[in-house]
């Protein structure tokens, strides 16, 4: 290099500092607004902190965690959330893969269809809640009007806990299928056509082609979708605010809402923080399990 060694050395020094400078704004924000709160939250979970504690709260050891163990409301909300994950993840998986499969068929106006199916992704969870609450509204909704029009009895939609719960599932799948559909379309298009041609020559039928070519080839996309959907459903809250409000009788109250209410309506920051820690462990367990299962599949 035709640069003098003195300047070259200062150039090297500068090169060492520069990347850190470029990273600084992001790292400051992450440190202050994600990592610091995470540690504060763990600390709070061992204290009797309330929303009105000024100064330092008392350390009370594992009392909050012990209280959680016998807290029926929290356990109900947590179990409700886990059930929602277990039910919604496979449904979302199936619906987005199905729509994606349709979009890689030789049909015209693919872009048009794709845009329409993707559109609900752009609508805020709050408004998605409003849309379905209005359509499913017991007295004024289109849903019950159609039912009565067909000669059925109207359903007591948001008074019926089971119906309300499934309406949450439906609204999630309706609003998010478009997003995961795109991930699957990308993955489906990257499967080499020759694989299918070879299978056809061997006389494989459609179902066999799906089982032995399509499904195994989607491993990376599958893991991605599993983890994203699991995370998304564990933190569900805004949709519920406008769709059901958590009711009837807490049938659609999930963990985040319960944590929010414990902290900001019952002012018990310590207990709410313990709930957050428990939830974080469970989310990590679920995503870790997904990851582990997919890795195991890889080794076989």
């Amino acid at each position, binding site marked *: 290099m035709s640069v003098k060694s003195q300047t070259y050395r200062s150039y090297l020094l500068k090169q060492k500092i520069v990347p850190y400078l470029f990273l600084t704004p992001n790292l400051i924000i992450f440190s202050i607004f994600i990592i610091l709160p995470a540690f504060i939250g763990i600390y709070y979970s061992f204290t009797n902190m309330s929303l009105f504690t000024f100064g330092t709260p008392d350390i009370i050891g594992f009392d909050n965690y012990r209280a959680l163990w016998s807290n029926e409301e929290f356990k109900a909300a947590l179990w409700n959330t886990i059930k929602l994950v277990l039910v919604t993840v496979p449904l979302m998986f199936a619906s987005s893969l199905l729509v994606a499969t349709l979009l890689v068929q030789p049909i015209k106006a693919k872009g048009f269809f794709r845009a329409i199916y993707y559109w609900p992704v752009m609508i805020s969870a709050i408004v998605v809640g409003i849309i379905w609450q209005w359509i499913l509204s017991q007295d004024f909704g289109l849903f019950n009007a159609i039912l009565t029009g067909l000669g059925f009895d109207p359903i007591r939609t948001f008074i019926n806990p089971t119906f309300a719960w499934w309406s949450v599932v439906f609204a999630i799948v309706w609003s998010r299928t478009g997003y995961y559909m795109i991930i699957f379309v990308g993955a489906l298009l990257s499967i080499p056509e020759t694989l299918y041609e070879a299978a056809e020559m061997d006389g494989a039928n459609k179902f066999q082609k799906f089982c032995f070519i399509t499904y195994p080839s989607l491993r990376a996309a599958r893991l991605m979708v599993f983890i994203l959907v699991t995370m998304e459903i564990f933190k569900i809250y805004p949709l519920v605010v*406008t769709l059901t409000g958590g009711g009837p009788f807490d049938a659609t109250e999930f963990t985040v809402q319960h944590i929010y209410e414990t*902290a900001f309506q019952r002012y018990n920051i310590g207990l709410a923080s313990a709930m957050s820690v428990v939830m974080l462990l469970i989310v990590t367990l679920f995503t870790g399990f997904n990851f582990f299962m997919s890795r195991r599949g890889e080794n076989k």
Partner: protein
Amino acid sequence: MKKNIWTNYLIAALLVVVFLVPVIYILLSSFKPINELFTNTPAFFPRKWTFDNYRGALATGNFTKYIFNSFIVAITSTFLAVIINTMSGYALAKFRFKGDTVIMIMILSTIMLPLEIIMVPIFQVLKFFGLYNSLWALIIPPAATPTGIFLMRQYLLTIPDEIIQSARIDGASEWKIFTKIILPNAKPAIATLAIFSFMWRWNDYVWPLIAISDPKKYTLQLAIANLTGEFGTDYNSVLAISAVSMIPMLIVFIIFQRQFVQGTMDSGMKG
């Protein structure tokens, strides 16, 4: 074969009904007079079109203010997000330095700490820094996003090192290289990040919920949610405001559809 194609079109059309009709029904409902809204025999189309719901919404709430706040937050935060996430993406794509793996893992791990789970301590942190009830709380913290960093990093890896090296030999400062070479060359990825960021901020509910209690600082989503909660559901206004809140996203979507699809594929596949 022929029959197969028709089944495909039939399913495609059916899905159009499933995904599009609910939204259209809400838009149409926002133009119905009250007696057509609150009936147990609702029609799909308004029999009589009216702007009363829109007028009512404007009269009761401070809705022009909320729309204004949402725009300020979405635009400013997006601008900030583009700058700082491109900077980080550049550092991670084009420099080798001590601790780069550690920083990468740290950024990755923030994905596992969603705001919804740590909202209680975040609330305390916002108060401590005087950001409570400030729109800055909705602009600065969410601007740093791991997804954005990865998107930019993946894209910037494709820019050849030679351009950067030759600029350095010409004596350009590192900041100048960033603004004059990296930013212009990253336009497609920046467009993707910008529209996603705009959507995230425009549709956001949880950050405003934690950070804002002053009605003058409400964003549109927070206002809609509070309107459904406190007054029972004031549907005629809510429908009109919900319709209005979808319009900016609809425009952005029509213009940038390609970027949305590409962005989803990239973030999904490369994560």
